[in-house]
């Protein structure tokens, strides 16, 4: 108004009119801009994987679903978009360099071998949530290894040690709790997971940790981690806890391998023995069977032969009974006829007192000279 009145004092009619006209447009433009900014500021979009949490003068007002929404602008209402459907991951004892690429990660060995660039190390250190975690250029490697060691190294219930790498996947089940109940959600998940896993591993043996208890640990740690986060009322939902590589400490690993190879040797030795057994026993059984069978054969032969002989004798005897003398003589002579021709060396001597001609003979092994 002030400006308008001043403008009205201008005497030149044309100049006055054009000035007044300009002023009118300036005013309209101003009002339009204020309204436009207000309107524009009151529209917001919630992405598909999120919800919008609206606060009026800081006080929680409502939670809105994905889509376009209106709110009061000019600082009256503000909106925070929380990605509740996105499953997020925390890694312990190692870090993936590129999300989704598991083959490239930061582990203690990789740092030792100098495979990791300084900027990656710096990044890892500053996001670790550890106190005093300001990257120190001269001892980057040491710091990074220290942080990872703090995560993977655990004591077991038999007072041994194990290196446990694991991941936790989570999403947000209650956006307003997530925003308003806890200030450092990511660090809280990390702290709780570290503590829960340690409690489980600490209550079991090293063998359970690295080998025989892995599945139980995964299940139990998920349950206990969820319970703890619910106690804190964080609105976080644990999707899964997965143990990655679980090993004995580096220096002890060769001894564990020794056990494996000893186990294999044991198996091998037993298998060899079993093979020998499996070869020998069936063979012996076969042999035994053979022995019995041949005995049966002998028995059959023996009995049959006896029966045959008996039958033959009985038949002969029947014949003999008809004419005993003649038959005997005939048999005798028949036998002699058969036997005598086959003998080449035959002597017939006179049977007189001192043997007669016999002493003249040089029979080997019979005469005194034959010695």
């Amino acid at each position, binding site marked *: 108004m002030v400006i308008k009145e001043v403008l009205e004092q201008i005497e030149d009619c044309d100049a006055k009119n054009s000035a007044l006209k300009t002023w009118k447009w300036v005013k309209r433009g101003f009002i339009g801009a204020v309204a436009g900014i207000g309107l524009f500021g009151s529209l917001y979009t919630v992405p598909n994987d999120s919800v919008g949490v609206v606060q009026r003068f800081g006080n929680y007002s409502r939670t809105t679903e994905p889509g376009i929404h209106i709110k009061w602008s000019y600082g009256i209402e503000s909106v925070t978009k929380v990605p509740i459907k996105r499953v997020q991951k925390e890694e312990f004892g190692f870090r993936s360099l590129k999300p989704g690429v598991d083959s490239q990660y930061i582990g203690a060995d990789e740092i030792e071998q100098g495979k990791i660039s300084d900027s990656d190390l710096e990044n890892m250190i500053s996001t670790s949530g550890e106190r005093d975690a300001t990257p120190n250029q001269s001892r980057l490697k040491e710091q990074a290894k220290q942080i990872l060691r703090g995560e993977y190294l655990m004591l077991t219930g038999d007072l041994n040690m194990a290196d446990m790498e694991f991941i936790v996947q989570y999403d947000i089940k209650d956006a307003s709790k997530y925003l308003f*109940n806890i200030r450092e959600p990511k660090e809280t998940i990390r702290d709780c997971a570290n503590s829960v896993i340690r409690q489980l591993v600490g209550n079991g043996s090293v063998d359970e940790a690295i080998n025989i208890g892995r599945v139980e640990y995964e299940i139990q740690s998920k349950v206990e981690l969820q319970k703890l986060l619910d106690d804190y009322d964080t609105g976080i939902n644990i999707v899964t806890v997965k143990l990655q590589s679980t090993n004995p400490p580096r220096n*002890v690993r060769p001894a564990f391998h020794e056990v494996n190879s000893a186990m294999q040797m044991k198996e091998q030795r037993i298998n060899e023995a079993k093979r020998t057994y499996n070869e020998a026993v069936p063979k012996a059984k076969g*042999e035994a069977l053979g022995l019995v069978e041949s005995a049966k054969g002998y028995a059959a032969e023996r009995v049959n032969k006896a029966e045959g002989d*008996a039958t033959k004798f009985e038949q002969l005897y029947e014949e*003999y009974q008809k004419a005993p003398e003649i038959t005997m003589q005939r048999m005798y002579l028949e036998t002699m006829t058969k036997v005598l021709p086959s003998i080449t060396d035959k002597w017939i001597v006179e049977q007189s007192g001192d043997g007669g001609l016999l002493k003249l003979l040089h029979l080997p092994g019979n005469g005194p000279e034959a010695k």
Partner: protein
Amino acid sequence: MIKENKRDIGQMIKKRLAGLVVGTAMAITGLSSFYTVDQTQQAIVTQFGNPVRIILNQEETKDSKEKTKEMRDRYQDLGISVAEGAGLRFKIPYIQSVTKFDKRLLRWNGYPEQIPTADKKYIWIDTTARFYIEDPLKFLNTVGTEDQAHGRLDDIIDASTRNSITSRNLIEAVRTDERKMRVEVGLEETTSFEQVKEGRKKIVEEIIRDADKICKEKYGIRIHGEGILIKGISYVDEVKESVEKRMMAERQRIAKKYISEGEGEAQRIMGDKEREVKTVLSEAYKTSKGIEGKADAQATEIYAKAFSKDPQFYQFVRTLQLYEEGIGKDTKLILGTDNSLFRLIKGEYGLTQKESNR
């Protein structure tokens, strides 16, 4: 006319400027009589530095009303009012100012501490805590800022952790209960497990109780009921080495055990084999001899039965058979002239039983 106009304009500008100043001042005053408390905050209103109002901002739970009442009781006599809830609030401009604190669960993270246990084992313990400001006024008066609070918590939690750990054996800080541990085959008898009396959970509870008591009384800070976590526990380097040695020795023992077990089992199987083979063969021998013997007996019986009809004739037949089988090419035969074969020549007839051969 122009001069008059100019004077009017001058006056008018002055008047308007004055209006602008007053308007601005009023606007500033108006704005400074508002303040907002975020959902994540609680606040204290002070008047010339003296607290007059506490804005708690609790989630509505069973206990929250009771807590508000407790705060009211505590501060009513001092002329301090207690209100609930976030949002837009009024105060007297200029003379009242607002201090805000976080009301959320906050993180305290300790440095790893080297602590000896009662059984003289040196370990690193890394703790973290979740705490919240329960009484913002007490907090304001005794601590002031969150950074300061971290410093206090360092002292309190480290001290109670140290107390609880040093008074117990290491096993108490590591294990939770007496669950039977499963171990690799071969270690069952050789590994001796220490007994747990209280366990880690109890120790942590004790640390929380001790720390919370001090925090509450002194600083208006509360440690969450599950709020202290041992997020790291490990041996110091010297102990680590000896533990590694022990682990290696244990494993080598298992390895040896496996090898000798393999050897033993193999020997057992070989023994089994020997036994089995010998049993089978000897049984077969027994059976076969039995069969043979029975057959022999049967044969003898058959022979006896047949031959007993005329033993003399049998003898004769058998002798002839013997001649046939026993006399061959290589036999030297010396026949005396007395022999029955020559009886015919000598004029004697008939066979006698006197026969001989050689």
